[in-house]
C-alpha cells in the first residue's frame, strides 16, 4: 500500500496564543510550531496501514514555510519513508481551497504513488476542513470525511467508519484509491523514541517550488484563495453571561462565586426542593420542555 499523507505545520494552540487585533493576526506563544494534531493521527494511521499490509510506503507531503521541515522530520520519525516540502513565497497566505489545489497538483506533477491519501479532518489554526475534499475533487477520488476506523482490503477497497453525532457511526465502503480525512479517536499516535528522532534528522526532506510543480501564481497564495480574513479578535464567551460579583453579597459568598468561575446565577433564584417523587416528576417535565425526551403520545379522549 502506498499512502500519501498531507500534513500542516500549525502554531501550538495548547500554548499561550494571544490576538493582535491591530495586526489582524495572532501572536504566537513561545512554544514552537507543531504538526497539526489531526495530521499526526493521519501519519500514525498511514504507518499502521503500511505495517499491516506488510509493505508499501508512506509519503508525507507539506505545503509550508522552510521551518515546516521540522514537522516533516516528525513524520519521518513516526515512520514515513519520504518527506516532501512545497515551499515558495508565492504560496504564502493560501486558504484551505488554494492549499488543496497546490497539494493535488503537486501529487500529480511529482507523480507520487498512492492507493490512499490521508488528511486530517481539519487544521486547528484555520478550522476549515476543505483541503482534503479539494484534493479529492481535483484528483477525482472518492472521499470520506471524519473517519475513525480504516480497514483496507487487498489494495482494492476500504471499509471505513465515519463519525456521526452521539457516538453513531456510518460504515462506508469505498473503492481505492480514495481520500479519507481522519478524526480524533482513530488511534493513539506512537510515542517518539529518541533514536527515531535522531534517525529522522539525518534523512533528507525534498523541496519543490512553484516552477517545479508547474503551478501558476494565479492559482496559489492570496490570488488563488477564495476566502479572506477581515479581522481577528479574542474569542467571545458564548451563551452564559459574564460575571460581576454582587457587592451586596458577603465576602465569603463572593469568594465562592469567584472560585466557581463566576458563571452568572441561573437557577439559584428558584431551587427545586421537596419529596423525591415530586422533584422527579418536575425534572421529567423539564426534560420534556427542553425537548430532551419525548413524552408519551397524547391520549385519545
Amino acid at each position, binding site marked *: 500500500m502506498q499512502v500519501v499523507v498531507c500534513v500542516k505545520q500549525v502554531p501550538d*494552540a495548547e500554548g499561550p*496564543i*494571544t490576538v493582535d487585533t491591530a495586526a489582524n493576526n*495572532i501572536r504566537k506563544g513561545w512554544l514552537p510550531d507543531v504538526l497539526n494534531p489531526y495530521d499526526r493521527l493521519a501519519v500514525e494511521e498511514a504507518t499502521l496501514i503500511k505495517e499491516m499490509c506488510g509493505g508499501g510506503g508512506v509519503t508525507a507531503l507539506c505545503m509550508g514555510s522552510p521551518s515546516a521541515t521540522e514537522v516533516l522530520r516528525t513524520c519521518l520519525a513516526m515512520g514515513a519513508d519520504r518527506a516532501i516540502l512545497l515551499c515558495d513565497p508565492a504560496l504564502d497566505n493560501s486558504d484551505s*481551497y488554494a492549499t488543496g489545489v497546490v497539494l493535488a497538483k503537486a501529487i500529480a506533477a511529482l507523480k507520487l504513488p498512492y492507493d490512499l491519501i490521508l488528511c486530517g479532518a481539519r487544521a486547528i489554526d484555520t*478550522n*476549515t*476542513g*476543505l483541503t482534503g*475534499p*479539494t484534493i479529492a*475533487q481535483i484528483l477525482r477520488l*472518492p*472521499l470520506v*470525511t*471524519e473517519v475513525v476506523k480504516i480497514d483496507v482490503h487487498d489494495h482494492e477497497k476500504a471499509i471505513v467508519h465515519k463519525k456521526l*453525532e*452521539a*457516538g*453513531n*457511526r456510518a*460504515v462506508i*465502503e*469505498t*473503492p481505492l484509491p*480514495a481520500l479519507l480525512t481522519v478524526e480524533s479517536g482513530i488511534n493513539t499516535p506512537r510515542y517518539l523514541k529518541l533514536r527515531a528522532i535522531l534517525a529522522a534528522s539525518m534523512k533528507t526532506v525534498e523541496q519543490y517550488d512553484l516552477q517545479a510543480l508547474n503551478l501558476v501564481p494565479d492559482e496559489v497564495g492570496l490570488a488563488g484563495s*477564495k*476566502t*479572506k480574513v*477581515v*479581522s*481577528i*479578535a*479574542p*474569542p*467571545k464567551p*458564548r451563551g452564559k453571561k459574564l460575571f460581576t460579583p454582587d457587592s451586596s453579597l458577603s465576602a465569603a459568598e463572593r469568594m*465562592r*462565586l469567584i*472560585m*466557581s468561575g463566576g458563571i452568572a*446565577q*441561573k*437557577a439559584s433564584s*428558584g*431551587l*427545586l*426542593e421537596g419529596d*423525591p417523587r415530586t*422533584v*422527579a416528576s418536575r*425534572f*421529567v417535565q*423539564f426534560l420534556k420542555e*427542553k425537548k*430532551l*425526551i*419525548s413524552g408519551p*403520545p397524547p*391520549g385519545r379522549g
Partner: protein
Amino acid sequence: MSADKGILVLAECDEGGLCDVSLELLSEGRRFADRLGDELSAVLVGRDNPALVNRLSEHGADKVYLLDSPLLENSVEFQAQALSNLVRERKPRILLCGATSFGRDIAVRLAAALKTGLASNCTALSLSEDGLLVQTKPVYRDKASANVICPTARPQIATVVPGVLDVKRAKVTRQAEVIRVAPRLDTSVPCAKAVRFAKGDPKTMSLDEAPVIVSGGRGVGSRENFRLLEKLAEVLGGVVAGSRMAVDEGYIPSTKQVGQTGKTVTPKLYIACGISGSVYHTMGMKDSKTIVVINKDRSAPMFNMADLGILGDLLTIVPAMTNELIMISQASAEESLRQS
C-alpha cells in the same frame, strides 16, 4: 458574479423531523433575504413531506427544492453532486448549512466542487455594508475568533454551529413554492457508499461524543452509590462521568474525569450529582447545552450554572428520577401499542 441571487439553506432532518439548526438558518436567512431584497429557498434531500414543507414555509422559505432519486439514499457523494448541480443552475449568492456531521460533509464537497470558499463552524453571521456575508468562526482551538469573507467566488458557503442563532417564525405567512428536482447524476465516477449505520453504544461511547452525561462527585459517597447514576444514565441513553474527587475516591476510572485535567465535554444534557462546582471541574463542562444540578448544599457554586437546580439528597432523588423516566417510557410504549 452579480447574477448570483438568493439565499439557499440546506434543510436537514433527523428522527424528530426538521433539525433545529435548519430552522435557525432559515430565520437568519430570512433576515438577510429581506435586507438584500432576495429570495430564500430551502433544499431537502430525498423527502417529500408536506408537513416539512409547511414548517419551512412558516420559517420564511419562499421556495423548497425537493431533490429525489433512489441513488441519493446511501451516498453523500451523489447527494453532493445533486446539490452542486442545483446550485450551478439556481446560482444562490449564499448557501447555509448546519455544522452537523451531515452539513459539514456536504459543505466541504460543495465548496470543492464549485471552486468557492467555505467558513466552517461559524458562531455568528452578518452582512457587510456592500452585502457580503461576514462569517465569524473560532480559530486556533477557540483561542481567537476570525471574521471571514468570500469576496468574489459564489456561493458564499458557511456551516453554522447548532444553537447559536435564534429561531423566529417569519412575519409574513407564506406557502413555499415546491419544486421537485430529479437530479441527473454521473454514476460513472468511483464512489464511496454507506453500507450500514452503527448506533452509538453508551457503554463504549467516549465522553466527548455522549449526548447525555450523568456526572457524580464526592457527594455520591461510594462506588456502589455510583450504580444509581449508571441506571439514570442508562435510561437516558447517556454515560457516567465524574469530578476529580470521584476519581480520587476510586468511584470511577480517571478516563471518566471531567474538568481541566480531565475531559472537556459538551453534551446536550449534563446532570451533576454531588459535585461542589470547583472551577477546575466547571471548565470542562460549562458549554453543556442544559445543566441539571443536584446537591444538598444550597450554597454549592455548581448551582450557579444550573438550568435546573435541585436541592436535596441525590441518594433518594436520582433513583426517583430513574423510576419516573422508566414509567413514562412504559406509558408511551403501551400507548403506541393501544394505537396500533
